[in-house]
């Protein structure tokens, strides 16, 4: 019997699911090797679990979703998070440093009708996760690498070095050196192909922290470049601001400035 694949969505923009669809022909080939049993964005035929592999997009931001992810986990042999929201809480985790009740009042005339938890948290804060794919959005190549490995029954291995290394491999001029641009490349995980420096701008960290990032040295570099503490803090508290390494560095910076 073919392995059964499912795709679930929580709080997110659908971009990572779109990358699944963007896998295109490879996805159709995958449909030969796996049975896509549940993927509401792509199919109106939903079949119940159990599933062999669940791809989970999005973060947990409501009480109902906190219950739903437990059921997804129970139904799935392997659970893989796809993207910054599912892996680190996403951009919507910026609320974690604010008051969600104030957010509700700011956006909605009737905040009392809006159901939302005080925090946006990654899937791993709620259930066991077997593999995490980083990126906002995820990279199609990384997704296929992981799916093929899991379907073949081998542990997937993805590199976790920093974007800097990719930049050097592409022979790009360093935007920090040449333009004095603040760039998260030294502490951000590989996966995008160094597209920001390739377009002559600094990286903003959408693949999350690299393996063992030296954030102490990095925040020192931002200060040397003349960024105020507030500007540097906003760099860290972005798409992946709630990822542990960025969160720790950002919180330390905020504490120093007495925020």
């Amino acid at each position: 019997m073919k392995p059964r694949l499912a795709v679930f969505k929580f709080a997110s923009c659908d971009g990572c699911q779109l990358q699944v669809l963007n896998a295109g022909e490879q996805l159709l080939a995958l449909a030969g090797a796996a049975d896509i049993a549940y993927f509401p964005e792509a199919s109106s035929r939903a079949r119940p679990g159990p599933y062999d592999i669940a791809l989970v997009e999005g973060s947990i931001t409501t009480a109902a979703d906190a219950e739903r992810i437990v059921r997804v986990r129970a139904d799935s042999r392997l659970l893989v998070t796809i993207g910054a929201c599912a892996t680190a809480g996403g951009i919507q985790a910026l609320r974690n440093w604010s008051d969600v009740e104030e957010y509700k009042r700011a956006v909605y005339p009737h905040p009392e009708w809006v159901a939302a938890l005080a925090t946006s948290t990654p899937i791993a804060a709620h259930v066991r996760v077997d593999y995490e794919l980083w990126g906002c959005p995820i990279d199609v190549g990384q997704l296929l690498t992981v799916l093929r490995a899991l379907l073949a029954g081998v542990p997937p291995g993805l590199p976790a070095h920093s974007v800097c290394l990719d930049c050097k491999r592409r022979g790009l001029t360093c935007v920090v050196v040449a333009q004095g641009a603040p760039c998260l490349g030294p502490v951000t995980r590989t996966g995008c192909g160094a597209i920001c420096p390739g377009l002559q701008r600094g990286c903003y960290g959408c693949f999350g922290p690299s393996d063992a990032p030296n954030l102490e040295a990095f925040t020192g570099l931002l200060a040397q470049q003349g960024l105020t503490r507030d500007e540097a803090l906003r760099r860290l508290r972005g798409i992946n601001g709630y990822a542990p390494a960025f969160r720790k560095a950002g919180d330390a910076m905020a504490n120093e400035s007495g925020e």
Partner: protein
Amino acid sequence: MTARSRTIEVKTLARVEGEGSLHLTVERGEVTDLRLEIFEPPRFFEAFLRGRDASEVPDLTARICGICPVAYQMSAVHALERAFGVEVDPRVRALRRLYYCGEWIESHALHVHLLAAPDFLGCASVVELAAKDRAAVERGMRLKKAGDAIIRLLGGRSVHPVGACIGGFTRVPRPAELHVLRDTLAPAGDDALATLRWVGGFELPQRHGEIEFVALRHPDEYPMNEGRLTSTGGLNAPQEAFDSHVEERQVPHSTSLHATLDGRGPYCVGPLARLNLNVDRLPPEVATVASSCGVAWPNANTATSIIARAIEIVYAIHEALRLIDTYEPPVRAAAPVTPRASRGSAITEAPRGILYQAYETDAAGRIQNARIVPPTSQNLAQIEAELRVLAPTLLALPRAEATRQCEALIRSYDPCISCATHFLRLEVEER
């Protein structure tokens, strides 16, 4: 429940971007309850944008929607350029139009082939459709890739591209890069025509109602980044007046903010609205194609939206090729930007219709207030209105068919539920 009364629930609304469900109760031919429920939890973009630097806004608002990030970037940069009084080089303006063509092509190709076509061909998904008509699916994917290639050249990747900034782009392509892109795009023109013939052959439901269509209108172009706010009901106003014409209300017992126009009621935005209001702005070659597909424009049958989308794919490829052929690299990739305490708003034509954004900034260029009105939240009241008309005719149908018809109606609007920053989960039920 009597034989004349029943409830239809579409538990998970499939093949839309985002997740929602429909709850509909019909009693004695009367719709007594109709709810398009949205599972999408609020993400509070307008709240967390406050305090961020204006330069960060294009990267952040892109994250509202993975399907149409370019639209969110474009409305954001135009609004902030108005706030800061930035003049954009006409050659940069042309590149932005090219960028937007890319998004229309990829988003429409995705919707037409992968999400909507299965409705008309009796399939549950694109995987089933591929088993039946692999050539059509492959054509759709080629078209999508052609659109993606444009976005990738200007923005590095197709989902959440990174090249757009206030004032222009962070980097502009060399002419040679556009020549390579041209080679990718040129064959897509034939694919687009084949897709238009394909959807022109679909048997479309006949839905007729009084619908007010709203779109931008530009003096000489088919609208994308600029134009006045116009409607088939006689609205003709500058973009800045959006707020005084559109009212958004949060309604109890409903799942979304409901948008109404000038107190008249719901309205429809998107490809059909654009075509209905701008068919005379199509270049002659595309106008000929549009008039030979068996549908007269303007028309109020929202089922023809899929044909409008296919026509816009043809147009966007035609326009992209024109822009490539007339390309002159701008001297500067981006105009200089001097932040100031100000406010600015802009509407651009996202693939799904007009997208309004307005910002207030402080002297340092930090966002004080943000407002974002996506196309899907503008369409929602109109979708519900059409469902109310459809509902009585569903009584005699088997449940599966009734469900299918409701789903297909909703999908003809290509609702992008993740985009709809204002969609709510139903919390208040009892009256």
